């Protein structure tokens, strides 16, 4: 096996890692601002993937515009679903004891997963890649799958976009201010519950976008939500809960790690996230980019 093969593995690992980053950054953002660990986040990602599948059957196949339309509409739909969950449910559990939060979000995971089973059934699905992204790109004298390269472009764009939103806009200032003193943000005349709803919706939007991208990267079935939420937990433990940079690094470590371990030891790849998580918990319990609790 030549270098070409390893490069292929790397590209594959990085693109899996990028999708993971997009999903995990949503989980991390929601935790950072709202202090709720949303167990149902993976289910929202899965709903995004299945919605992309259903919608793709209605759109002209092979067209790049169809796919871009999926990327536009599906995350919005998942964000709207998030709005429908935040106002009656999540809003009530901010600042409540962890057990209550866990109960609610875990119950939601079960409900949403079963709803997917009812709607989409147990079949394995995927979304056909648009023609423009279906082939491969020549890179020196190697061929790389265009779709993976596309994801490697989208992932960093999302990372930069998130950074810009959080660190360069007033909305970002409000979101980050609400992390430390939400009641003070309110006393300054800001409708904090709106900031929180918007943050939650952004987290859901990211889950939905991850779902769309995954639907054409690999097969999707009813297990992907659970699989992704576990990976997301590993990512936020490795990178540090609430840190976007940490989510990026953690996701890439995980994606590339799994891709390379899968090769000699396909079964070991399953435990790699746990192994990496345990290692971090031992040497740096607050994660690579996190801050120790004061």
């Amino acid at each position, binding site marked *: 096996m030549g270098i070409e093969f390893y490069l292929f593995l790397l590209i594959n690992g990085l693109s899996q890692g990028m999708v993971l980053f997009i999903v995990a950054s949503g989980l991390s953002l929601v935790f950072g601002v709202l202090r709720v660990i949303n167990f149902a986040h993976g289910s929202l990602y899965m709903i995004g993937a299945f919605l992309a599948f259903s919608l793709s059957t209605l759109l002209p196949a092979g067209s790049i515009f169809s796919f871009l339309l999926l990327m536009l509409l599906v995350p919005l739909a998942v964000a709207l679903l998030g709005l429908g969950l935040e106002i009656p449910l999540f809003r009530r559990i901010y600042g409540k004891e962890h057990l209550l939060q866990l109960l609610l979000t875990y119950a939601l995971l079960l409900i949403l997963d079963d709803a997917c089973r009812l709607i989409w059934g147990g079949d394995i699905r995927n979304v056909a890649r648009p023609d423009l992204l279906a082939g491969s790109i020549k890179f020196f004298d190697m061929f790389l799958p265009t779709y993976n390269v596309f994801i490697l472009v989208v992932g960093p764009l999302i990372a930069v976009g998130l950074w810009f939103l959080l660190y360069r806009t*007033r909305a970002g*200032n*409000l979101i*980050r*201010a609400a*992390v*430390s*003193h939400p*009641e*003070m*943000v*309110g*006393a*300054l*005349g*800001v*409708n*904090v519950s709106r900031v929180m709803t918007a943050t939650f919706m952004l987290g859901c939007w990211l889950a939905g976008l991850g779902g769309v991208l995954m639907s054409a990267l690999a097969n999707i079935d009813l297990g992907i939500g659970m699989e992704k939420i576990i990976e997301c937990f590993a990512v936020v433990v490795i990178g540090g809960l609430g840190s976007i940079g940490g989510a990026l690094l953690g996701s890439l470590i995980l994606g590339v790690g799994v891709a390379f371990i899968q090769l000699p030891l396909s079964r070991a790849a399953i435990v790699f996230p746990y192994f990496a998580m345990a290692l971090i918990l031992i040497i740096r319990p607050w994660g690579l980019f996190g801050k120790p609790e004061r």
Partner: protein
Amino acid sequence: MVNTISTYYPVAIEMNPDILKIENLVKSFNGNTVINGISLSIAQGELSAIIGPNGAGKTTTMLSIMGLNRPKSGTITYRGKDITGHAPFKIARAGIGFVPEDRRVFPDLTVLGNLDVGRRTPKNKSKKWTLERIYKLFPRLQEFSHRNAGTLSGGEQQMLTIAGTLMGNPDFLLLDEPSEGLAPIIVKVLGEFIEVIKQEGMTVLLSEQNTKFALKHADRAYIVDNGSIKFEGSIDELEQNAEIKKRYLAV
């Protein structure tokens, strides 16, 4: 001399309508009454001080005004409107600015970011407090505008909290124990600042344990102890009341 608008204008100001009225405020925590029927009225353009020892109920009163706690009974009226129990952001939008006692800056935001959070232009009003004016009043904040607020000294954080609240262009300011824990030189800067905003016609409710500081800047004083008002009146009246001075001001 012909009466012009300008000669009538001061007369209108002298009427000093009450901007804030608290009637019979009661607040308890787990059955312990900590505010026991406080009433006060604050006239437009005046600086009123709530003076009292630690635990007297000053902060609790301010939090009630701001909607940050829910009183057991009593009403709070601002410009004739009942605001009791309204959401803090609505109370802020009505024109009340709050500077809490514990310097609640947003530590992970830059100084500029902190000011940005507070920025607000009330409807039908000119932007009185711009970034330039804030920086002129607190030059240190300009110098440190790109530093994280968490790295500032206590005094600088206090100035930043005040500045952030001013960015919302309030017309009534609650200052909760602003001089507490500050070095004397910073207290002096704070005093100068208070004189500047008084000159501008800002209405202020100042809570203090530091009697000397409060009396130096106040037009009117309320002395609170154990959740109720023991004295209210102008500073002159307070100066003439030997008994109150002896009992509560330790002079």
